[in-house]
């Protein structure tokens, strides 16, 4: 471990100036949503903390999370993979394959015993001893358990690792579950989304790399920096919801004008995610901005909450305080009901938020 380069070492080796290094730290501070007064902490962390070793395993997944990860613009994928972390095992990007690759995994988990970060993408199938996902001739669940034993912390990348994902939707033919259903006794960070926003994925790793500790989490284990608000709270179409101006049908006048998509099934009011503030491609868009209702793809069990284009009253609503029928009825009766419902949801959310805070403060 002591031979590993810090971020500052890697900058100096590349002949980059201290000034460039400090500028990068400033950018990172902003990117991580921290006040600029925290820059000093970031600089200190980047100077002293060694680059973390990351091992990335794949279970029942679609590789969409790897693809999201390399779409990151800040930091750029190359900077992250080559200079900010040491990605020692990733079957999507690694040059090696087969036996030498598997041996390398064994070596790495022993060499960095208790010190590496395990990133897992994909659900864990348990039916029939896990034979529906075999890696290197062994069930993925066995590989996961072995590697997790040696890890310092685990990141559940994407809704599959965090909740079981699409394959765990009813009737879940392969008995697929989240990583945390199989692994215990290790710090686990949930980074749900199908896939998560690229900068959320890299932001979590950056936090670990720079501060050497797990970012503050909410009660479900998600980083508060990225999952602390509902999409509804920061949605750019929010004012139309409050004013009761809704698209009634795709491609109608309301759709063209960019009004609220609630009646087309938008799950924004129940979706805790960063789409409303970070958006995709560093602020370019997110599904709602492109005219498509949010599916709440970062929420537990969202796949079983269809049909996606029917509005909330007809679906099971986890995480909400009030009954969905009341929301719908209220809205159809009067536009102002939207404001009221929203106020109720917000106040409950506020209460929950406060509760989370206190829970974590105790830790």
């Amino acid at each position, binding site marked *: 471990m002591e*031979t590993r*380069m810090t971020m500052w070492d890697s900058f100096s080796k590349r002949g980059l100036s201290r000034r460039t290094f400090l500028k990068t730290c400033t950018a990172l501070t902003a990117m991580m949503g921290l006040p600029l007064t925290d820059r000093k902490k970031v600089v200190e962390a980047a100077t002293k903390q060694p680059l973390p070793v990351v091992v990335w395993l*794949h279970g029942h*997944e*679609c*590789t*969409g999370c*790897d693809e*999201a990860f390399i779409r*990151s613009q800040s930091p750029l*994928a190359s900077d992250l993979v*080559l200079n900010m972390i*040491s990605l*020692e095992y990733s*079957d*999507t990007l*690694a*040059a*090696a*394959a087969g*036996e*030498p690759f598997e041996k*390398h995994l064994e070596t790495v988990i022993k060499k960095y015993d208790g010190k590496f970060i395990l990133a897992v993408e*994909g659900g864990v199938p348990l039916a029939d*001893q896990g*034979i*529906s996902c075999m*890696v290197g*001739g*062994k*069930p*993925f669940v*066995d590989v996961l358990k072995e590697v997790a034993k040696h890890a310092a912390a685990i990141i559940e990348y994407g809704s599959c690792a965090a909740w079981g994902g*699409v*394959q765990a*939707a009813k*009737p*879940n*033919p*392969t008995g697929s579950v989240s990583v945390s259903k199989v692994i215990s006794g290790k710090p686990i960070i949930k980074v749900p989304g199908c*896939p998560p*926003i*690229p900068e959320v994925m890299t932001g979590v790793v950056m936090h670990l790399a720079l501060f050497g500790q797990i970012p503050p989490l909410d009660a479900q284990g998600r980083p508060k920096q990225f999952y602390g608000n509902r999409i509804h709270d920061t949605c750019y179409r929010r004012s139309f919801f409050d004013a009761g101006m809704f698209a009634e049908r*795709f*491609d109608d006048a309301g*759709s*063209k*004008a960019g*009004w609220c998509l609630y009646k087309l099934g938008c799950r924004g009011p129940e979706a805790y995610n960063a*789409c409303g503030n970070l958006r995709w*491609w560093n602020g*370019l*868009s997110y*599904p709602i901005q*492109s*005219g*498509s209702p949010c599916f709440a793809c970062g929420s537990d069990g969202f*796949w079983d909450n*269809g049909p*996606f284009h029917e509005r909330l009253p007809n679906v099971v609503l986890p995480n909400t305080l009030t009954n969905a029928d009341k929301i719908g009825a209220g809205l159809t009766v009067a536009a102002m009901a939207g404001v009221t419902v929203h106020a109720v949801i917000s106040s409950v959310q506020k209460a929950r938020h406060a509760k989370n805070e206190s829970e974590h403060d105790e830790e």
Partner: protein
Amino acid sequence: MKRVVVDPVTRIEGHLRVEVTVDEATGKVQDALSSGTAWRGIEIILKDRDPRDAWAFTQRFCGVCTTTHALASVRTVEDALGIEIPKNANYIRNQMASSLAVQDHLIHFYHLHALDWVSPVEALKADPGATASLQNAILAKYDLGLSGPFDFNTDAYPKEFPRATPAYFKAIQAKVKALVESGQLGIFAAHWWDHPDYSLLPPEVHLMAVTHYLTMLDRQRELVTGHVVYGGKNPHPQYIVGGMPCAISMNDMNAPINTARLGVVDVAVNLGISAVNYFYLPDLLAIGDIYVTKHKMVDGGGLAGKCVLGYGDYPEDSYTGIANGDFHKRLLLRCQGVVENFAAGVMAAKFTNLEGKDYVDPEIITENIEHSWYSYPQAGKALHPLAGVTAPNYTGPKEGTKTNWKYLDEKGKYSWIKTPMWRGKMAEVGPLARYIVTYVKVKQGLMQPTWAEKMIVDQIDGVSKVLGAPAHVWMCSTVGRTACRGLEAQVMAYINKYFFDKMIKNIRNGDTATANMSKFEPASWPKEAKGVGLHEAPRGALGHWIQIKNGLTANYQAVVPSTWNACPRDSKAGSGAYESSMIETKIKVADKPLEVLRVIHSFDPCIACATHLYDTEGNKKAVINSDPYINACGGCGS
């Protein structure tokens, strides 16, 4: 004789294992098996859900060729319900599909495939000055001088262009050196870097390619910016049955699509053209030229010279259906059909058409499970996807235990992938297949080429000239498969531009419709309906089939490209594309089978799902069945 296992095969989408039996003295592969080692059962999950949501589930077959299954799925449901989508929706979908193809092909070449040809260790031996000269030389030598049509030429100069300065290459080399010397190789760790094939290319080619690996790792995201504008995100952008959710309006500043948003797409369209013309194609042709002309390496052809298959894609305008034949009348890329015996030359090859009702004919496209971990009610009888049955029947390995394999059983069942067949024959699909079918149809005078088809023929003739070999010789090989993917990226970059321009002209004419909602409500649907959805995904011909009953999905099937290519053998039809290509590849060092990785990667594996829930009468089977998911991707175009 030595049996070598490669598991996991990395730099692919999904979980794939291969086993090859090699004669160590001659390097000849006696037998090879390809096994998909995972399945997820998504088609089972689709049952009894709203068919309008199916695209979101099937899109999650694969996040690499993200969008391809969503597209095939909405097409399937629209075919079943008789929904004709507006022109703009067709143009937008075509832009999303073609821009995905550019990005997916490019990422495959640089980040999944390049390390089979190129080594960072070799790059250390390069002279940065000579690398800069090489860069200049290849930009001149490998410019095929081809272009697609432009209605609105908005690109003043190439925004991304390779730097050919010694200092730049020196800086990159220093970074690679620092990485190698640190002993922490990260993604470059534990590979067979001492394999003799890494010395086939001069060190300067290695340094140039490694440099572009890094450049393109950071630029690839911008190639699919259109997905984020039209679909709100990438991977996994949003669709709707009946069109696209991104409404267009020039009267509303909050509109999903207006001029400012189109400006963002325009920049990405132009970047795709630059990235392919100045990076991808010259790099690819420089490497391919050395392998073919200097080292005469044209092995790994496998099924390509025997039987290839395509479905055709990119409707010029709206169409009324697929199974009714209208789709195939309106295509820009008419690579639908089968070509047999291309190895004998373009004029000797045999073409058979594949259109409209052929896709619902129970005899034409079928799947078998002789060597797959499933059982059928009538042994040996292959079934059409819509009539298929999938009862899992996991039999374990030949040697080892159920949960700890040593060797799989090539004489018995050994894969979660089924074996799809065309009229009882194995076929290869993918960019190479599309190129062979198009080339044969045009050269044999079976069709008058569209601009895109003419560009394909010109590219093939251009490369044949550069390599000094006839098309059927260089194309039917590992290099040819990889080369056709790069050539196709160029055509796709211009198809993206073409449909962007068509959309602009259409909006200019006053048409801003993006969705046909007349049959969106289940109350307007017939009690029962069946449909097929086709798409030429990055990895080849993709088909989805649906049965709708009482407003819900009664059965859903996907036969994906990697199922065609990665399938296990069949006692009558022989070996599939992966297996026969491995058998035709010579291995230099038995326990370091780099050539196997290279030939498998030339297909860009992405293994997919095909689930079969019902028997032929539509009765639910008592057994849970599933699909071969090979990892994630289904098909991804898989």
